[in-house]
């Protein structure tokens, strides 16, 4: 016959060996390991100033027969501290959700009870399917003047604690960040970046409850952000990007009129369009070398730059040498 025993950290615990007399000869084990007699007072087990590591299964056996006389599971923990509660409407005007957690773990099981009161009415907060510390409220009325009061109580075997939030419908509106943010360079425009995004999918009715957006961008090499606020549309062209520099871009959303800004979206990176370096074959064609036309450039052997001893003789040779010099210079640049 085993049961569970909850004790506070730092408490002194006395375990009796079931119905055995105080002066009976017994052996105690903790998780199967014998406990030294120094911890015993007769047949009682004394644990002073317990800590978390002492949680476990404690068993008491009769001295000679080694019969199991008593077994208990000791769980050392703490009563709950005041929980942290937050409520938010990311799907206005459908409703809102409340989410909570404990600031420090208690090490023992806790149960949560949440109540939502609107004026005189108690509303049902439906548990989230996936997250156990979250529940959802559906609005019945819109544009309410009466505040909502949400009270969360957390209870465990060692105590209880609670916290409350009181708020107006409008103050807790905070959309999720915009989704699918994409930034692309604009061909033939070295200072432009085209950014587009979508309304967060959790926002149910952008037609009647339009969102406005805040875009921030900076080149990776600088710390200072630039900002643009947009009250319309889900795209924007940055026109003052530094040429050739990689940018980091983020977008946030807010209901046009009420509530607060969302968190920043996932950051995207983009570099504005830069001009492609010109191909060498075109240069070769313009200066009319006699070399065979292949896709890779080969300087004519008579025009090596390092050939300082080359004699500048006739004009034709000189002309070819100058042309070759120009071509060799290009060759050096692009190899």
């Amino acid at each position: 016959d085993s049961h569970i025993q909850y004790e506070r950290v730092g408490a002194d615990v006395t375990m009796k060996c079931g119905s055995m007399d105080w002066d009976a000869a017994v052996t105690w084990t903790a998780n199967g390991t014998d406990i030294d007699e120094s911890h015993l007072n007769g047949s009682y087990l004394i644990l002073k100033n317990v800590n978390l590591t002492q949680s476990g299964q404690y068993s008491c056996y009769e001295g000679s027969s080694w019969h199991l006389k008593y077994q208990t599971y000791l769980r050392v923990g703490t009563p709950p501290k005041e929980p942290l509660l937050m409520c938010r409407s990311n799907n206005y005007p459908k409703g809102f959700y409340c989410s909570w957690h404990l600031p420090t773990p208690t090490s023992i099981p806790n149960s949560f009870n949440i109540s939502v009161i609107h004026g005189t009415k108690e509303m049902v907060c439906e548990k989230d399917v996936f997250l156990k510390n979250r529940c959802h409220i559906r609005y019945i009325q819109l544009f309410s003047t009466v505040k909502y009061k949400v009270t969360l109580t957390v209870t465990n075997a060692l105590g209880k604690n609670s916290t409350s939030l009181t708020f107006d419908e409008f103050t807790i509106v905070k959309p999720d960040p915009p989704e699918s943010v994409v930034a692309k360079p604009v061909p033939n425009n070295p200072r432009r970046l085209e950014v587009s995004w979508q309304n967060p999918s959790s926002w149910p009715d952008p037609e009647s409850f339009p969102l406005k957006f805040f875009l921030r961008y900076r080149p990776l090499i600088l710390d200072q952000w630039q900002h643009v606020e947009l009250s319309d549309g889900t795209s924007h062209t940055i026109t003052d990007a530094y040429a050739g520099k990689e940018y980091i871009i983020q977008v946030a959303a807010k209901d046009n009129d009420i509530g607060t800004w969302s968190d920043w979206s996932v950051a995207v990176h983009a570099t504005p369009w830069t001009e492609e370096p010109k191909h060498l074959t075109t240069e070769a064609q313009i200066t009319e070398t006699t070399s065979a036309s292949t896709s890779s450039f080969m300087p004519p052997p008579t025009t090596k730059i390092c050939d300082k001893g080359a004699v500048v003789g006739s004009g034709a040779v000189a002309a070819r040498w100058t042309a070759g010099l120009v071509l060799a210079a290009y060759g050096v640049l692009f190899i």
Partner: protein
Amino acid sequence: GDSWGIFAFLCAALCNLPALPALNCTEEPGAGRCIQQTYDLTRYLEHQLRTLAGTYLNYLGPPFNEPDFNPPRLARAERVPSATVDLDLWRGLTDNARLAANYRAYSRLLCYLRALDGTAGTAELRHRLGHFCSSLQGLVLSIAGVMSSLGYPLPAGPPVPPGTSVASNDFLKKMDDFWLLKELQTWLWRSAKDFNRLKKKVPPAVVTLRLEARGF
């Protein structure tokens, strides 16, 4: 971000203040522009009300100026028109019904606010209330302008005069004041949404606010 738009409108409003009561939407380039202006006006008023309500509630004193103050709604307070509405009902309102609800609400709220005027504390507070009432009157006229430009008749009958039921004691009178300001605030939030919907329905002169600020 919002403050830029408010500031821009403020300038326009201040410059046009004498002309505001004479806003005639039938002459303006279409109902769309009128709706936008009415929308801007609700935002301006909501912004103004925040400071005004704070000052007035401080004048009323505790518990009215406490942020957590959440009293139950007494039956007598129902005479102030409520913005609260069932979600599907609100969605299904026709343009006419939507505008009419706004018009009726602000006409009555204006009356009640004017009644506050004479009794409020300091001269400063009375002056601010007076200014707010003028702006609120502008809103009522603006809504009327939108309705007439769309061919809708204005809701019939004068608003119910206040002061017919005098609060039996000082505390209840203050409660009435508290609820009046609360309803006014909620109506301004609602109107922003109402006019957003109307903007989409009526062919607009859409005003896109684009603000650039470097090095925030």
